[in-house]
């Protein structure tokens, strides 16, 4: 396999790290050992906070659960640390599962507060539980041995820590570059999109949370056996805060940021400890306040942390498609003319507002149906009801004979429906390719474990291939461009490509032509007809009448939440009520 320049840099970095014990004074190994342990926790926060958008002050507490589990089992039953590692991970996982299941449904800012609460609770639990040695702590925790060699000198322990960190950084990076990783990124502000393409975001959120807790447990395990002593203070709230600092200062969006942040904060504190007494005298201890001031200043200068600044000078990540011959399976499409979608008296009310009221129509396979109406007529609401984003207040929707009225959007997605959004919902920091691959989520199957170990590469290659194919098909050439750099019209096209990667039976397009230039609109019309020729059924909401009248077979007109008219484009254009609705009758 050919390695990208980023990968070479990472390998070089870890090679230097491996050689440092021969170059650095011992104390720096101690310090870097701490950095490694902290970076593990920060790595978990990268997944949780930077990628998935949930914040936790409780990582130190999870670290404590891991540390205590391992230490107590070692001391009580004389087990080997390698055995208790397993127990530490399991116990922490169970605790995290319980806490996560309770809190992860909450809105963004509740989670950090809840984590403060359990961070404090677990601290006092460590101090008061009967088997933890109380606040005074447990001494004599055995060191970790490898092939009979105790890893308790600074340099050996340093190697152990960084080996574990390198491994975890590698698997985390793998995960981020996988199908699951893309879905995780969508948890941050893109839940609707993720659900629309078949992701169970709640389960994924819990999984992410679990993973971050396990990384913390691993750090706790290293900590306990490295120090040989544990008591509650290192697992208290202030350490939990410190970990979040590391992730945020380093740049919580990337693996590099976790290591950078952990290193920076640890070294900064150490250097402040040396420097401040010289500048301000011994009379007071100003390390913490000065540290706080520096963090605030940094946030005001670089909100995203320091890694993005560093990233600008790094070579760009590799921009080649993965080789691979495997192709994704293709859904069987229903025969042309068969009834695909049917709405019966569908209503959606918001309080007193009847956004959609008793709308019925049906859509046959191979057809393009246009849904038009003035602004505020309820078209987008109806779209959201059909795709399962909103549950209908009344009525029935059937897809290929199956009642989907009560289905969540991810379930509907799995039945072969894909959509675009009126307000473009892309991931601007992801490449076109990454965005498009999001569409193929339900066509691939690799879960967290396979992703972590990069055992899903052939499937990933097939996904890439499918995405690249659809991007070419809609005329988006530079697949490694960031989606945020595209003009609005092209972003809409990208959304269509993303929906096509899902290999949909039914494609829902919400105002695909808005913001497109004339030439682009013509291409769009051509594309839609081509798709129709290939057996894709399309439901389209559009304001651009030129486009609509040109491509659709039939039109449904809505006004004030109700169906106003239905018919061919020509019939609709002559329909007096439609003209009235569009041009207004106030005069």
């Amino acid at each position, binding site marked *: 396999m050919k390695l990208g320049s980023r990968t070479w840099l990472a390998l070089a970095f870890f090679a230097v790290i491996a050689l440092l014990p021969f170059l650095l004074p011992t104390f720096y190994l101690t310090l870097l050992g701490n950095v490694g342990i902290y970076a593990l926790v920060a790595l978990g926060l990268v997944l949780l*906070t930077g990628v998935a*958008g949930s*914040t936790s002050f409780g990582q130190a507490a999870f670290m404590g659960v891991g540390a205590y589990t391992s230490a107590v089992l070692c001391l009580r039953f004389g087990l080997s640390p390698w055995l208790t590692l397993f127990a530490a991970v399991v116990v922490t996982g169970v605790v995290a599962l319980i*806490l996560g299941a*309770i*809190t992860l*449904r*909450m*809105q*963004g*800012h*509740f989670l*950090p*507060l*809840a984590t*403060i*609460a*359990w961070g*404090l*609770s677990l*601290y*006092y*639990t460590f101090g*008061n539980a009967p088997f933890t040695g109380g606040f005074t702590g447990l001494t004599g925790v055995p060191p970790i041995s490898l092939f009979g060699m105790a890893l308790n000198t600074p340099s050996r322990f340093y190697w152990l820590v960084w080996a574990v960190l390198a491994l975890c950084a590698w698997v985390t990076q793998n995960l981020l570059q996988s199908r699951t990783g893309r879905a995780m990124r969508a948890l*941050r*502000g893109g*839940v*609707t999109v993720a659900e629309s393409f078949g992701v169970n975001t*709640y389960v994924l959120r819990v999984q992410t949370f679990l993973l971050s807790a396990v990384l913390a447990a691993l750090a706790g395990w290293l900590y306990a056996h490295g120090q040989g002593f544990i008591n509650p203070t290192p697992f208290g709230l202030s350490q939990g*805060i410190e970990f*979040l*600092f590391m992730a*945020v200062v380093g740049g919580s969006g990337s693996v590099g940021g976790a290591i950078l942040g952990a290193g920076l904060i640890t070294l900064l504190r150490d250097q402040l400890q040396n420097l401040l007494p010289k500048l301000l005298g011994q009379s*007071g*201890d*100003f*390390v*913490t*306040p000065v*540290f*706080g*001031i520096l*963090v*605030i200043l940094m*946030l*005001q200068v670089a*909100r995203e942390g320091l890694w993005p600044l560093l990233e600008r000078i790094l070579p760009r990540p590799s921009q080649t498609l993965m080789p691979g011959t495997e192709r994704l399976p293709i859904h069987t499409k229903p025969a042309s003319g068969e009834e695909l979608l049917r709405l019966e008296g569908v209503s959606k009310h918001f309080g007193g507002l009847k956004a959609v009221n008793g709308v019925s129509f049906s859509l046959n396979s191979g057809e393009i149906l246009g849904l038009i109406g003035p602004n505020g007529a309820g078209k987008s609401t109806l779209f959201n009801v059909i795709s399962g984003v909103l549950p209908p207040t009344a009525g029935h929707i059937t897809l290929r004979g199956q009642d989907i009225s009560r289905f969540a959007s991810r379930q509907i997605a799995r039945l072969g429906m894909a959509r675009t959004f009126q307000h473009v919902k892309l991931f601007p920091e992801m490449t076109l390719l990454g965005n498009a691959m999001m569409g193929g989520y339900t066509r691939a199957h690799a879960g967290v474990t396979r992703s972590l170990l990069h055992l899903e590469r052939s499937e990933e290659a097939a996904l890439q291939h499918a995405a690249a194919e659809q991007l070419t098909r809609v005329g988006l050439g530079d697949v490694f461009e960031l989606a945020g750099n595209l003009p609005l019209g092209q972003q809409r096209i990208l959304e269509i490509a993303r929906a096509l990667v899902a290999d949909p039976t039914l494609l829902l397009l919400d105002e695909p032509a808005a913001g497109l230039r004339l030439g682009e609109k013509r291409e769009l019309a051509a594309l839609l007809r081509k798709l129709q020729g290939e057996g894709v059924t399309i439901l389209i909401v559009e304001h651009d009448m030129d486009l609509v009248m040109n491509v659709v077979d039939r039109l449904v007109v809505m006004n004030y939440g109700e169906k106003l008219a239905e018919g061919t484009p020509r019939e609709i254009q002559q329909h007096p009520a439609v003209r009235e609705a569009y041009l207004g009758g106030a005069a």
Partner: protein
Amino acid sequence: MDLAQLFDPAIFPVLAADGLTNGAVYALLSLALVLVFAVTRVIFVAQGEFVSFGALTLASLQLGKVPGTLWLVLALLAISAVVEGISQLRQGQGRRAGMVLLSALGISAGLWALLTWLAPLKLALPLQVLLTLLLVVPLGPMTYRLTFMPLREASTLVLLIAAVSLHLILSGLGLAFFGAEGSRTPAFAEGQITLGQVQLSAQSLVTILVSAVLMLALYFFFDRTLAGKALRATAVNRLGARLSGISPVRAGYVSFTLAAAIGALSGLLIGPSTPLSYDSGFLIGLKGFVGAIVGGLVSYPVAALGALLVGLLESFASFSFSAWKEVIVFGLILPVLLWRSLTTRHAEEEE
């Protein structure tokens, strides 16, 4: 065993009174937290520091010392003036920049003169309380100007990290100013009052009454005055407020001023019954938070009730399982969150 003893007529009312006294202070703090969050999206964990600063500044004045708070105020004033001056200059407002610097200089000199003159005189308690408020309350708007105003478009997480940093700064400075040991401030009322079964210290009664009055005052402010309504409006709909001519920056200033004032007053209320030290405020503030969370960080009355509940729960837990008290009090959040997660539909968080 213990639980039955809890309802002993000699014990229950005492615990309830104790819980209400603390709960009243938590309630005040929770109101400030809800206010600051609703208006500025800042989860203001440094709120508790104002509590410590309030009590300890008064304690310094009691000893006839110039409180360290003065130096902090002067430093923040200087930095704020420079920052503000620069931003005025950038907008081409040279004269205004000069005015800002000059007035800051004037205020600083005045404050310094006032404090160095009055502090050693050991004035009467009400005057010292006024001096304390004069020193602590400005910390609110100034920390807003320097910390949060430049970040006002940032995500909640960034604001939260900034608030935590501020907590570190203020508690570190608190240690330098006031020392590690706590201080007690004089009571506003001496003696014990007997209400039926319960013996209540007069100070507890003052705490409860003052909290109640403050809450009523806040209610009046939010419900009856244009400025208070403008704050609420900013919290309800930021864009709508701007389009009505309400400046969110000004709303930020007002809410942080109120937060500092409420914090300092809370410190003065608890100060007499318990020694407060530089790091006491944080946990007191966090308990206010639990209340605020019960109120979903939006509802003032529910937050206040939640905070009262925290006070009561803390008192009863202290009696029955004192070692596990914090676990119980902070664990309270989890069922509340669970209940919320089951009753509210998950809303998409658009960044």
